């Protein structure tokens, strides 16, 4: 390929990376660079099915919708013929490229580039594709430090593997979960109005699966919009076809088949024949013993939570019931002590954590349970105001989708007050005018979670 072609063909091959072009073949499923690449060659020239109104209930194969899914720019000019193209992630061939021709900045290896099918020799037997370096460089010129001249041109072969055409599997995703993680820059009031709508969409499983190894899954706006039922499409009309729509992993894993993620079978593990005692073996064994009967989460076991309890008549003001003495194993481990803990001692120990000055435990209704602040005059105000502030902030900022609010810190001239709310409990600590020391915030969070779990399990309150 001559140097001139660099300029001649660059625009059409690099700008339409993720757009579907008539006759295009999409490689959507990839494995590791060094292994044969999983690919699904899906000719878009195959007959397209019509979307039905009740698509949410019965997902149909993806097909473009004319009203919100206009033809790409190349089609708008009504070309008489568009050469079929294949879409390939850069990772498929990146390591095959001569390093001295590459830019120093490593590109996004997951980015899809398009190559005219006529330029590629596909070998179905070896499941490999071959094309010349100069042609490849036209598809992604930005990863090369210069144009590839004839003298440097070499064939580049990279692995692909085709799946049965036309039998693409799909994964059903709840639209609500996608909207919960929707990019703020793409979110419009009309899209926001859909939050809470119980609708499901079907997305290509291969496309999702191929990205799982990156820890993040996105689908191009075009594919996302295609998956929507026709009554929902207008809500997303402003979404660019190349925009990346993140699909929450948690949602994917609630739907994905178990075989979708598999560790390689040829793995080897280090299995030393002898054990060398290390200076840390004793502590490791000690900790293992200490933590052995502690559940991984602070949630009480289901059977414990469901146990019928014989309770004394409830007081008029409903207070959480915490029997710290009986259930203090986890608290003991949190404080690394064997000393029996009651609620007062627990709160006292919180106050003794590095950097803390005082600690008070209240209910969210303002009832003081244990501890106190340096200035008792502050206690009433804090008990009345901070839980409310916390809950108000939490509900007001729900739209940020930043996860559960854990702490609110108020910075005063001389000290700081941080409030942790969990269930019906509100723990407020006064600390030095410095941030929390490493691990202290997490420890307080674990303590309030444990106290809240004990309270939720309906145990007798410590007086």
């Amino acid at each position, binding site marked *: 390929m001559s140097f001139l072609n660099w300029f001649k063909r660059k625009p059409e091959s690099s700008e339409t990376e993720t757009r579907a072009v008539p006759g295009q073949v999409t490689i959507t499923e990839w494995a590791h660079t060094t292994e044969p690449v999983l690919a699904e060659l899906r000719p878009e020239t195959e007959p397209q099915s019509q979307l039905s109104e009740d698509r949410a209930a019965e997902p149909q194969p993806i097909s473009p919708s004319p009203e919100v899914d206009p033809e790409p720019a190349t089609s708008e000019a009504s070309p008489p013929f568009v050469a079929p193209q294949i879409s390939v992630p850069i990772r498929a061939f990146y390591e095959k490229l001569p390093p001295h021709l590459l830019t120093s900045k490593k590109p996004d290896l997951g980015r899809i580039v398009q190559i005219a099918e006529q330029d590629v020799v596909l070998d179905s037997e070896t499941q490999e594709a071959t094309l010349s370096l100069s042609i490849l460089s036209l598809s992604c010129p930005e990863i090369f430090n210069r144009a590839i001249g004839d003298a440097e041109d070499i064939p580049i072969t990279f692995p692909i593997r085709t799946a049965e055409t036309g039998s693409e599997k799909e994964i059903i995703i709840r639209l609500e979960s996608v909207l919960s993680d929707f990019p703020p820059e793409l979110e419009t009031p009309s899209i926001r109005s859909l939050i809470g709508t119980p609708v499901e969409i079907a997305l290509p499983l291969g496309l999702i699966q191929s990205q*799982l*190894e*990156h*820890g*993040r899954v996105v689908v191009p706006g075009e594919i996302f919009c295609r998956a929507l039922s026709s009554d929902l499409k207008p809500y997303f009309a402003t979404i660019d076809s190349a925009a990346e729509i993140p699909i*929450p*992993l*948690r949602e994917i*894993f609630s739907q994905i088949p178990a075989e979708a*993620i*598999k*560790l*390689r079978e*040829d*793995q*080897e*593990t*280090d299995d*030393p024949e002898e*054990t*060398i*005692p*290390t*200076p*840390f*073996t004793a*502590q*490791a064994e*000690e*900790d*293992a013993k200490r*933590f052995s009967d*502690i559940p*991984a*989460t*602070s*949630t009480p076991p289901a059977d414990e939570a469901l146990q019928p309890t014989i309770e004394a008549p409830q007081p008029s003001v409903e207070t959480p019931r915490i029997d710290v003495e009986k259930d203090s194993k986890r608290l003991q*481990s*949190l404080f*690394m002590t064997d000393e029996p803990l009651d609620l007062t001692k627990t709160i006292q120990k919180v106050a003794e954590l590095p950097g803390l000055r005082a600690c008070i435990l209240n209910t969210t209704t303002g009832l003081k349970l244990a501890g106190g602040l340096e200035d008792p005059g502050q206690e009433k105000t804090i008990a009345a105001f901070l839980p409310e502030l916390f809950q108000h902030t939490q509900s007001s900022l729900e739209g940020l989708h930043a*996860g559960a609010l854990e702490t609110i810190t108020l910075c005063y001239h001389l000290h700081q007050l941080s409030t942790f709310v969990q269930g019906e409990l509100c723990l407020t600590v006064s600390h030095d005018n410095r*941030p*929390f*020391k*490493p*691990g202290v*915030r*997490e*420890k307080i*969070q*674990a303590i309030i*979670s444990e106290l809240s779990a004990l309270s939720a399990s309906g145990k007798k309150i410590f007086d």
Partner: protein
Amino acid sequence: MPIVNYASKEIQFKIVYYGPALGGKTTNLAYIHSRITPAHRGDLVSLATAADRTLFFDFLPLTALTLQGFRTKFQLYTVPGQVIYNSTRQLVLRSVDGVVFVADSQWEKMEENVASFRNLEQNLQKQNLHLEHVPFVLQFNKRDIPSVAPINYLEYLLNNRKRRALSFESVAATGVNVFSTLDAVTQLLLHKFKRENAQLFAAPGGR
């Protein structure tokens, strides 16, 4: 490469805690520091920003067992997890003997875990090192949080190589599996040291 001082009969190992920002690396060190007898440890040097984030690195020196007449010292380091501090991470990784990768188990941190892991591989490569040859263990931290990814996915993301590393589920804030992780990486590096220094072990007391 451990530093062996034949004059003072000391071997010094360097273990680096690597991983994404706010994943629990410093918390690991803080817990270890709190559990080791003061006579056997130095101060935990921690330079943190106002938001609890490691600015430069944390450092915890530990003096411990005697190996063939040599007193062993372990230096535990953490790296700053934020992407921008890569040159600091490269500096801290120099002459590393063992690596603990502390992954954050929360769903929303998966991409950061992968990026940090790749960054570790790249930074090791710059020193002509490869994870295959460095004593290395994985720690899946924050397992007490309700919204965490399943272990098989974390293994798939971070442990899907030919040589499968030991991995631990941990809650560094409370200490769960913090010492098991440290013990495992120490075992690995002592085995490696023993293999590579057969002459030292053949002649007790060294040369």
